[in-house]
């Protein structure tokens, strides 16, 4: 039995309704408890800001695409090298670090749970292997269904139950967590050299539209009672004028779940552009935020960009090709048979580029204009908008109007003409930041029930103690301290153990992988379904029996089991 007592903590725990109380947190054997004995180890938090461990609900840190980003960018690998030190492995890389680099940097910032935003089912083993080498965070994998042939056939046949059965079989086979749609239909169209340009375009050769796919998958998701909703990367990412596609998508979304959103829209900054060309691109954050404010069944994340060098990587193959045509630098393009694809290119976001300045403004605007912080989560779509190590800077920008003005002064002076940011006064408070960086994620992902994102007795003892004293700080003027504080915890506690202290990693760590299994009635089990089996026999290069990820790939798997309403 190991016991730990965190004393004198300034706690904000939104899911438990705690908005800044000085209290003690008792921990026994990795869980939060009511109280511990007098022999418990004690940490004096000294009135510092203490939050549940951070949760990133959309990040790209593990898997084949991330790894390809690593080997196509030797210059990125040379950046951010750290030597072996105590239990710490060597790390390297800046925008696409090694797995240990990701894990340690997240841990230093108080993050204890990370969702990988896109796992190709066929290549799931690689993702899981990298998960086990990300030892300080519990990991979850969004599983790509955007170009899945069986899904598109079910959508064409208007058979939502069949779509649910395909999802259930696949999630269980690849140990995935939730449904991810990346440019639904578009990635498969790209396999034929095409793309889709609205949610009403036909996907070539499949007779379905992205809109039909999104609607069907939202319903299938609820039939399976999955913890998370459908996680959508809308069509037309990065295209001037794409806000209309985003609004059209939002119009489709029914309200089907009382506990959480029915659709999660990721990196919405990239989907909120007005104008018709790169020359007249403008911010449509006001329209998008209004739509989100009007529909409580939506949750979004920002997809903030930050200036500097990074790497873009997504299953959205055609979008990456458009970027390649702009930059003519390195480009990777990848097809995953019968399922999805991907593309990767390095980018540099510049303050001298008006387009980049407007993009920067849009992300912040979304966070400031969406009224309810539970609906808008902090993200950079790491590393697409910026590496996640920029989160503290984004927090500081959201908390300080003065900091935003100072930054705006460095940008292209026309930025204010194309984006409403200068007119926005709102400054987020500590509570709202706590919601946007952990509590809202736990709710949106549906993992508060397994003890994530809060500090009530029974919860996982994942705790972040930041060297910030809310009573003594005014974030609107002390933004530098806010930034530094969120960048380096005094203590990061993972499952009851201090894993990082003042930026030093002190424990090797051992994480869990959370996945979902939806139980379906026998007639919906596709293992012996002739049509489904034929897919493997005729098209896949992998046998059906070799396709599922074996348990040994998840040394500490945590399974969430649901009962499908089929």
């Amino acid at each position, binding site marked *: 039995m190991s016991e730990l007592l965190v004393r004198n903590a300034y706690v904000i725990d939104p899911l438990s309704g705690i908005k800044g109380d000085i209290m003690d947190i008792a921990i026994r054997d990795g869980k939060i408890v009511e109280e511990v004995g007098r022999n418990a180890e004690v940490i004096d938090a000294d009135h510092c800001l203490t939050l549940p461990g951070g949760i990133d609900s959309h990040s790209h840190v593990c898997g084949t695409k991330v790894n390809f980003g690593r*080997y*196509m*960018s*030797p*210059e990125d690998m040379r950046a951010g090298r750290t030597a072996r030190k105590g239990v710490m492995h060597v790390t390297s890389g800046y925008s696409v670090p090694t797995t240990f680099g990701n894990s340690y940097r997240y841990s230093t910032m108080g993050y204890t749970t990370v969702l990988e935003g896109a796992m190709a089912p066929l290549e799931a083993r690689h993702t899981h292997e990298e998960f086990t080498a990300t030892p300080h965070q519990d990991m979850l994998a969004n599983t790509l269904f955007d170009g899945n042939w069986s899904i598109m056939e079910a959508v064409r046949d208007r058979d939502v139950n069949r779509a649910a059965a395909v999802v259930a079989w696949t999630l269980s086979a690849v140990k995935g967590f939730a449904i991810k749609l990346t440019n639904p239909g578009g990635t498969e169209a790209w396999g034929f050299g095409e793309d889709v340009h609205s949610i009403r375009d036909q996907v070539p050769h499949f007779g379905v539209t992205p809109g039909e796919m999104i609607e069907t998958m939202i319903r299938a998701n609820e039939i399976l009672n999955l913890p998370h909703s459908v996680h959508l990367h809308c069509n037309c990412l990065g295209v001037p004028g794409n806000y209309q596609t985003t609004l059209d998508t939002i119009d489709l979304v029914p309200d089907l779940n009382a506990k959480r959103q029915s659709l999660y829209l990721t990196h919405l900054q990239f989907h909120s552009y007005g104008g018709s060309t790169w020359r007249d691109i403008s911010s449509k954050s006001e329209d998008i935020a209004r739509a989100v404010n009007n529909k409580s069944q939506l949750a979004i994340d920002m997809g903030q960009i930050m200036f500097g060098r990074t790497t873009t990587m997504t299953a959205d193959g055609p979008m990456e090709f458009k970027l390649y045509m702009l930059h003519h*630098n*390195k480009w990777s393009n990848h097809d995953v048979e019968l399922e999805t694809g991907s593309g990767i290119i390095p980018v540099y976001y510049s303050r001298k580029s008006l387009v980049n300045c407007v993009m920067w403004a849009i992300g912040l605007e979304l966070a400031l204009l969406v009224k309810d912080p539970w609906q808008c989560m902090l993200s950079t779509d790491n590393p697409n908008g910026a590496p996640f190590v920029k989160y503290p800077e984004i927090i500081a920008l959201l908390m300080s109007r003065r900091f935003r003005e100072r930054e705006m002064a460095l940008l292209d002076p026309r930025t204010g003409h194309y984006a409403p940011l200068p007119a926005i006064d709102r400054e987020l408070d500590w509570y709202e930041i706590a919601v946007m960086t952990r509590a809202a994620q736990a709710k949106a992902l549906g993992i508060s029930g397994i003890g994530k994102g809060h500090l009530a007795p029974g919860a996982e003892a994942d705790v972040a103690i930041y060297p910030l004293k809310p009573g003594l700080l005014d974030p609107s003027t002390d933004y530098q301290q806010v930034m530094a504080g969120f960048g380096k915890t005094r203590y990061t506690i993972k499952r009851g153990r201090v894993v990082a202290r003042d930026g030093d990693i002190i424990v090797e760590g051992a994480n869990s992988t959370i996945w979902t299994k939806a139980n379906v009635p026998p007639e919906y089990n596709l293992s012996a379904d002739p049509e489904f089996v034929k897919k493997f026999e005729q098209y896949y290069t992998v046998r059906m029996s070799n396709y599922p990820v074996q348990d040994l790939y998840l040394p500490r798997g945590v399974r969430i089991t649901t009962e499908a309403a089929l």
Partner: protein
Amino acid sequence: MRVILQTKPRKNPHIPIEAEAVIPQNFLRKNDIRVYEGNKERKLEEIFYITTEGPAVSPDQVEIVLAGETGTLKRVGEYMNAGRIVVEGDIGMHCGNFMSAGEIIIRGNADAWLGREMRGGMIRCEGNAGHYCAAGYRGEKRGMRGGTVEVMGNSGDFTAEYLCGGEVRIHGDCGDLTGVEMRGGTLIIGGNCHRPCGNMTGGTCMIFGNADAMLPTFRSNGIEEREYEGQRFQMMVFRGDVANRGKGTLLIRKK
């Protein structure tokens, strides 16, 4: 100042030494210089007998002489920005990576990646060089950008891949895919090579021996005269690589 580094006998002489710290600027002050033997960090004096002669006030007055079993030393001269390194025998992989100034003389052979992504300065190898001599690196779109690399013997495959600037001079033969992806700079080959300059977009390559398996995507552009080692030769001029809308120049000696 002259620093002589003579290798000491080692229990397992085949384990490579990561010696990127062996550059003149590091010897100016009495620094604690460390290298890696495999994954073990070693003090310089654990690997070498060190003899220092004379003073130096700036790195360009530092000469490092490497002697003994030098063929296992990797990354010697990486990021070097002044001074001189003389290798009495062979040298391991990645000698002169990213070097920006100064000179490296190799009396024996050099292993792969000699002068990779070099920015400036001079490397002369009196023996043969391995693959990827004066080239870029995996995933890197720009290779050597400046300075000169001269190899008196032969070099391996992918010589001067992604060459962007500076001059590469190979007196012997080159291997396959010589000058592939060249974007600038000058590549001069005294001997033969195989499939030169695929995807070339800029720069000049001159071949005074034979070019085997010449690619069909170069456009003939007349005859010019060029000099090599005091003799004048008639050269066939080509432009390409047309497949990549390239504007490079490839000159091959007319027989």
